[in-house]
């Protein structure tokens, strides 16, 4: 009985007063699961068996010097090597994650692009392309049109991550595919405006592309 009370949705007027919107059941469940998992992860650290089997016997006792106070203040800001150890990219989750979950992201991307170009196809595709060079493609639906490696051609999916030399996309079959940028031509479609991207020229980290200017170098081909 109490469980049903906990899981009931907040009544509308109360929701308005608080400024909160109650979520759909599936989302609320997903959220609760993740929240519980996050909060109760303590016991896995203290593995009882290993704790009981490896018992340390203290022979002599010396007090360790606590000199860490000065060092800590510098280390709190130190970032890099440690994060790369705790790998930032997701690994096994995509089996966990489905294509449908990324559709709202795609909707958000579309709004962003429409906003960026401020009106679709204003008779000057040059203008739109200039903006696209500096735009962000996370969440776009990307298709491989031509490529030196024929097995890549025809792959479609939502771009999830963009690295220096590869794109990571998730296809409709919920598979995470890694596509190298070099020697491939990608196609992005926005409301009827199709644009082709030459991957070989795009070999920069996503953030660097926004910062750097593009030079026309070499022939534009596969």
């Amino acid at each position, binding site marked *: 009985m109490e469980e049903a009370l906990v899981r009931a949705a907040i009544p509308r007027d109360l929701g308005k007063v608080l*400024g*909160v*919107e109650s*979520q759909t059941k599936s*989302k609320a469940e*997903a*959220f609760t*699961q*993740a*929240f519980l*998992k*996050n909060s109760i992860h303590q016991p896995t650290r203290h593995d009882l068996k290993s704790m009981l089997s490896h018992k340390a016997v203290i022979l002599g006792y010396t007090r360790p010097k606590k000199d860490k106070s000065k060092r800590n203040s510098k280390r*709190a*800001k130190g*970032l890099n090597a440690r*994060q790369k150890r*705790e*790998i*930032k*990219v*997701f690994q096994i*989750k995509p089996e*966990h*994650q489905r294509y449908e*979950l*990324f559709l*709202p*992201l795609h*909707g*958000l*991307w579309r*709004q*962003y692009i429409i*906003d*960026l170009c401020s009106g679709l196809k204003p008779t000057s595709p040059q203008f739109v392309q200039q*903006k696209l060079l*500096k*735009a*962000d493609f*996370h*969440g776009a639906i990307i298709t491989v049109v031509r490529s030196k490696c024929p097995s890549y051609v025809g792959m479609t999916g939502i771009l*999830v*991550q963009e690295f220096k030399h590869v794109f990571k996309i998730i296809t409709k079959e919920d598979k995470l595919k890694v596509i190298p940028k070099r020697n491939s031509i990608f196609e992005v479609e926005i409301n009827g405006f199709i644009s082709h991207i030459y991957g070989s020229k795009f070999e920069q*980290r*996503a*953030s*660097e592309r*926004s*910062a750097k200017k593009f030079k026309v170098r070499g022939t534009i081909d596969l």
Partner: protein
Amino acid sequence: MAGQLKDKEAYQRMNYLYQAAHCVLSQNPENMELARFYCFTQRTIARRLVLRQDPSVKRTLCKKCCSPLIPGVTATTRQRRKNRKTSFTVMRCLSCGQSKTLLNNPDYCLWVDRPEAQLEQQKQPDPGPSAKKQPKNPKSGGSASSQSAASTQQQRKQKQQPSSGNKKD
């Protein structure tokens, strides 16, 4: 003014990445790495182009691991007291354990909010709590994001109440 225009695209991109991180987290609260990736990209863009961000945005990003800090989902928020007067809000990032201390001073006015820093006309202040509840709504995220995109467009010029005051409430 031309300099401002060039940065506008970068600001839009950073803003989009921030919203995308929240959107992804709302869809699947378990995967934090993708949200962290987006926020990392956002911070790299800001660092490359040396762009100023609004403190309200900077406060919700962990400085160490660059994950978005959402109280309840990715971070814990606690209140502590030093003397009788000063009280702190301590936010701890759950993934890297980095804690962030903010002083609760309702009279404190951020530099951005002061009239001498405002070059354009002032916009409506967003109340703190509803801005925080926004990321959890994926459906209204689609419609609200366009509004919030318009309002957070110039992140530097955005006027907000000092969020330290809101946290004390």
